[in-house]
């Protein structure tokens, strides 16, 4: 254990971070989904979907800024993430369905919807599948690049895919007994820092205290150990881009231009031809993928301007 390690009872606070004002559970077709709210319960609702391997409480700075603008911000932990139930099965469609169960718990009227990264793409699907439930759309670095991967020889590509598949199947064979590795707050923050290299140590420590649980042998991230990065599947970026063109509600998109592993590497010029008429794209040259965490004041101002008077 390093000298700089925080003791368990030294729970760090983070300036500007506010815990959700309300927490509740929603039953999504038998699966227990954790829901969080910031802002006055009687204020007009705005929904926010987090990205993959994140959780709703990563919004503890951004969501209160939107709530301060007069909105009731509702977010939820996607299945297997945060305090939501670990599922036997995970899929894009199931995530969209779970989201709609949360929407149903708030209102059946159309609502403004925000999403970051994977959450942004999920909300695009929801906006096309259920256009009557979405009044405005905010996508924060969750729009894919249309360009294909750089050319690599066919045999090499096959080998890379074979390695990915073998690793995935080996992981599945061991998933039943898998647990997350325990550690101190600092150790978990350091691990997450590999995914979020641009975010401050103080923020990452804060995330541990709201996204991990304290067991007898240390802290553990709550996310289902069966989930893992990367993967494979038949999904194509152009399918999402086609969805984008189908959007018929006011929409803004944001792109963080500093490349990082969790980002999607989307270039504005690749995206602009697909943006729906009347939409606007905000490009942050000096931000990575987590724009709403790196620049919460700037992003919340853009969002509040876009949402208009509550």
């Amino acid at each position, binding site marked *: 254990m390093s000298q700089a390690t925080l003791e368990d009872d030294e729970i760090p606070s983070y300036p500007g971070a506010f815990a959700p004002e309300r927490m509740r559970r929603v039953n*999504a*077709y*038998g*699966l227990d989904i954790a829901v969080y709210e910031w802002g006055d319960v009687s204020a007009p609702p705005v929904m926010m979907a987090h990205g993959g391997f994140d959780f709703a409480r990563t919004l503890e700075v951004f969501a209160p800024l939107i709530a301060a603008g007069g909105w009731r911000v509702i977010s939820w932990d996607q*299945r297997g993430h945060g305090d939501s*139930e*670990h*599922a*036997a*099965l*995970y*899929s894009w*469609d*199931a995530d*969209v*369905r*779970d989201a*709609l169960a949360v929407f149903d718990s708030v209102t059946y009227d159309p609502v403004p919807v925000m999403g970051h990264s994977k959450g942004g793409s999920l909300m695009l*699907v929801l906006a*096309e*599948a*259920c256009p009557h439930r979405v009044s405005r759309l905010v996508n924060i670095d969750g729009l894919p690049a249309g360009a294909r991967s750089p050319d690599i020889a*066919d*045999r090499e*590509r*096959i*080998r890379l*895919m*074979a390695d990915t*598949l*073998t690793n*995935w*199947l080996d992981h*599945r*064979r061991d*998933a*039943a007994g898998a647990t997350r590795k325990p550690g101190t707050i600092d150790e978990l923050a350091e691990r997450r820092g590999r995914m979020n290299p641009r975010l401050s140590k103080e923020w990452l420590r804060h995330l541990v205290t709201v996204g991990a649980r304290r067991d007898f042998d240390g802290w553990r991230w709550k996310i289902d150990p*069966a989930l893992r990065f990367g993967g*494979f*599947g*038949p*999904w*194509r970026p152009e*399918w999402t881009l086609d*969805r984008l063109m189908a959007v018929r509600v006011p929409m803004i998109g944001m792109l963080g231009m500093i490349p990082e592993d969790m980002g999607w590497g989307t270039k504005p010029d690749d995206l602009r031809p697909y943006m729906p008429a009347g939409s606007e794209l905000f490009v942050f040259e000096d931000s990575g993928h987590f724009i709403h965490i790196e620049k919460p004041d700037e992003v919340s101002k853009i969002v509040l301007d876009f949402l208009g008077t509550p």
Partner: protein
Amino acid sequence: MTEYLVHNKVRLALHLLESGGETQPLLILHALGLRAPAGIEAPLDAWRGPVYALDFTGHGESTIPKGGGYTAEVLMGDADAALGAIGPATVLGYGLGAYVALLLCGARPRDVMGAILCDGPGLTGGGPAPGSPFLPAVNPNAVVPPDPWALAELARDIRPEDYATNFLRQATQFSELEHPVTVCAGSRPPWLEAVACEPGVKCGSLSEALDEYGQA
């Protein structure tokens, strides 16, 4: 005899339909909405090794999980759990099971000693590209298999031609067999038509395929 395997949070039923020890096992993967057969009939009765049949997640005696989330890829994980239990095997898939057999053959090319793709429900899936998205509604009170989420989700599972042929090419690149895949299905949805046209794929009858792989 039925053995229960664990794949993540799901208990899978793997049925031994026939014992025998002269060649590698035959693993049967059922079609969408069905379950492992209770026994074997001709021409499977000519197989000289043990014959197993798996119930996929949400089917037969396997667990029905909460809230759906089915993909063909996770069923490949089911089939791989069976392969882990019985060792290298020839895999015979019907309908949805045929697609899963192809995926498994590409992902475990040294352990699948031939994949045989036959007709059955769920062979087409959702086609090569997504249609209009919709959120299916199912009967939340259904308590007997098959899981209605499995029926709803695996009937619209997207199967692009080049995605399927990538698995096939992995099989041909890494398998020791000259023809790691045999197509017996008469129906040819786009993914299967693309696979059937690739080198390393044989088209023929089930009897011929069993005979070839049984000699391997």
